[in-house]
């Protein structure tokens, strides 16, 4: 279980696509043989999947969208000297 303390952090890195090369290889090898890490990986995946289902977290109101489009237009006009 000592090794799992090390790989517990690696699971997060793996899920976040922050591992590459030998680190990625070592983590994949470890995952194949460690039940505890696979359980943790599945739990982390479930959380991520749930969060991704509620994407985007909030939707900007139409009034804000309109206001920003107008602001962009005004600034563009001012910049072009019209």
């Amino acid at each position, binding site marked *: 279980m000592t090794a799992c303390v090390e790989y517990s952090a690696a699971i997060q890195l793996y899920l*976040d696509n922050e591992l590459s090369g030998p680190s990625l290889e070592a983590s994949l090898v470890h995952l194949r043989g460690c039940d505890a890490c696979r359980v943790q990986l599945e*739990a982390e995946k479930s959380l991520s999947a749930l969060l991704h289902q509620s*994407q985007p977290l909030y939707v900007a109101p139409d009034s804000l969208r309109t206001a*920003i489009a107008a602001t962009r237009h005004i600034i563009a006009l001012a*910049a072009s000297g019209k």
Partner: protein
Amino acid sequence: MSWRNDGTNSADAIGLEYLDGLYSYALVLSRNHAEAEDLVQETYVRAIQAMGRLRPGSNMKGWLFTILRNIWLNQLRKLRNGPPMVELDIDNGAANNVIEPSMNSHDLYVSKIETEQVRAAIQELSVEFREVILLREYEDLSYQEIASVVDCPVGTVMSRLARARAKLRELLSTTANGSDLSELKGTQ
């Protein structure tokens, strides 16, 4: 990446494709709809004005999120000397639900409940945890990009993210009522 600045220094170069993400980040930081709208609007104004100073190839998305965060921090500093802040008006989520056209009414109901539970759980986290969850899980920024936006070392991003996820899993497992959320209990 598609959010790199292509060297076009005009107001139109800052598209509205970042709007929902910036608004979500503003809400996660301020927990107040009116304040979030002001933050996003100010972000666009400043970004458009500063566009000429952004080098081609720069990470525009990260740049916009950094601007928003700096505006929020400046406002916080000013408010510390003023009246207490009003926050947490975030319950009117009905107007903010994204409806998936292929879903039936039961799926829509479950999805809506889950989205509300996710939002509520995220808003229960500390602001340091809320922002790393938003930037990683919803905006798909790398650890390096998050570190740049929140102005801290990559190692701090990693540890905050791990603790934020653990706390989020705990909060969501507590609110789970036989829904898919119960799967999160794996590592509790």
